């Protein structure tokens, strides 16, 4: 849907655009459908392979919508595996920290010990277990796979689709992307009283920037020549989609913003860092229209993950459903190892800014959920600039009514 003009304008031919339904945001019955038809069947992003970089590294990821705690570990053989964080003995939770490095996992209840490949290694007083084979009592595995360093799990046993097929043309779009940030990721987490899609929608469009982010983003993203955040490009990749967002090429910090100027001074940037940013910008999926007036790209990885691309690399947003009107939001940002205090300061400044932006978005979503639940309206008339919300709901409705994953992966209109 690219055009030859700078931003996407309403077409001369009137398009049929029916309002997007609100019932999926407030119906407990629909939430149950999403639980089984979406979250149990899709590949779900749970971070990056670098989260478990070395043998013995592990992380625990909660997936409340499936009542699952997922233990992800890289074993001595170098292979990453995912397990239900549940002891095969009496169902206790095995690992009670979010991440770490360990030679083995020990259940706190009766000290059953598991290797990092999930096999059961030690049972205290084992001879008192009759008709018992340890080989049948390891941690229960969950399908796990990775693509370009992005880690995914699938709760179907076995998955109805492979990860490469699930990502499809979107996988082609991002293939070969370099992670130019070699430091640890920073994680901001919030619990929100709203449906997971209300939160996700808030991050899928830039139309709100001129109002919600007027002090944090407006001059950069919605300047006078594109006040309402019209998009540079929109694309659909089956269940996934992207938009490329406008940016003010001539933005400079105001004269009296002394610290902002100090934090963004390109003359103090390390040459290796500038080179890495240059390489990132060359990737086909970053500023795909090669526009001078570009800020970032938003990639919706169905169902609940967004990969964002900017000049400094990528960052992610995830929206984990807890109930029809409760969500855990997680924003992960990636930074390179700073060369000096000035660079480390710039990172702290950028992260403080990112935190403010997330806070502006999240403060609003609970008000939106209440309005949706009031029943005052049944649908949302959407601007073309909000089209990723339309695509997202179309995909949600398709998956919740598709009997098989094969059916759910078909027939997406471009």
């Amino acid at each position, binding site marked *: 849907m690219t055009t030859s003009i700078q931003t996407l304008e309403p077409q001369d031919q009137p398009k049929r655009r029916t309002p997007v339904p609100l019932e999926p945001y407030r119906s407990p019955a629909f939430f149950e459908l999403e639980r089984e038809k979406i979250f149990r069947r899709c590949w779900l992003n749970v971070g990056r392979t670098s989260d478990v970089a070395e043998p013995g590294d592990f992380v625990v990821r909660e997936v409340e919508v499936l009542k699952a705690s997922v233990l992800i570990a890289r074993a001595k053989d170098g292979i990453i595996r995912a397990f239900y964080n549940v002891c095969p003995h009496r169902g206790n939770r095995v690992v009670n920290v979010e991440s770490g490095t360990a030679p083995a996992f020990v259940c706190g209840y009766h000290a059953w010990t598991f290797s990092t490949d999930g096999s059961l290694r030690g049972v205290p007083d084992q001879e008192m277990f009759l008709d018992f084979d340890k080989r049948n009592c390891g941690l229960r595995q969950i399908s796990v796979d990775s693509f370009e360093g992005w880690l995914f799990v699938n709760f179907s046993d076995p998955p109805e689709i492979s990860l490469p097929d699930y990502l499809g043309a979107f996988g082609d779009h991002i293939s070969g992307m370099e992670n130019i940030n070699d430091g640890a990721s920073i994680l901001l987490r919030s619990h929100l009283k709203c449906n997971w899609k209300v939160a996700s929608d808030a991050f899928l469009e830039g139309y709100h920037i001129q109002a919600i982010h007027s002090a944090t983003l407006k001059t950069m993203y919605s300047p006078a020549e594109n006040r309402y955040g019209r998009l540079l490009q929109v694309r659909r990749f089956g269940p996934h989609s992207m938009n490329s967002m406008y940016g003010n090429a001539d933005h400079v910090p105001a004269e009296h913003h002394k610290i902002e100027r100090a934090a963004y001074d390109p003359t103090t940037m390390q040459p290796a860092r500038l080179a890495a940013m240059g390489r990132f910008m060359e990737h086909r999926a970053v500023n795909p229209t090669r526009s001078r007036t570009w800020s970032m790209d938003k990639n919706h990885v169905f169902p609940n993950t967004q990969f964002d691309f900017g000049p400094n690399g990528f960052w992610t947003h995830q929206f984990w459903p807890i109930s029809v009107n409760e969500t855990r939001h997680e924003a992960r940002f990636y930074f390179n190892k700073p060369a000096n205090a000035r660079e480390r*300061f710039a990172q702290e400044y950028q992260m403080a800014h990112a935190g403010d932006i997330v806070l502006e978005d999240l403060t609003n979503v609970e008000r939106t959920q209440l309005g949706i639940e009031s029943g005052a309206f049944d649908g949302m008339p959407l601007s073309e600039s909000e089209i990723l919300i339309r695509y997202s709901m179309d995909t949600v409705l398709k998956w919740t009514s598709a009997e098989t994953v094969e059916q759910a992966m078909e027939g997406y209109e471009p």
Partner: protein
Amino acid sequence: MSTSVALPAGFDELKPFVSPWALADFGARMLARHGATMEALRAFYDAATPRFDDMVAALDGYPLDDLPPPQQTLYNLLMSLAHVAHSIERHNNPVPSGTRFPHAMRMITGLTPA
């Protein structure tokens, strides 16, 4: 984390700000800034901003993940300035308008070094 107020030589006028602002990680700095009064934010911003280049220079040559205590204190102060600047330069308010403190957003894992 050292509770000493000591800063490297030449930063005496910043000593009153060590106790409230020389904080150990992003999460603590973010919450302190969001929860502060404009008076406190402005006092720290006005004292620290003219010394920004000096603070950065005083940390040159030290490994950031293994700073001696006076430099660590200075580093923690400098990192808080990165947060406080947004309240003063952008928002004219401790938190962005339309948002409030306390809020439920938390840093779970932070930048390295902290």
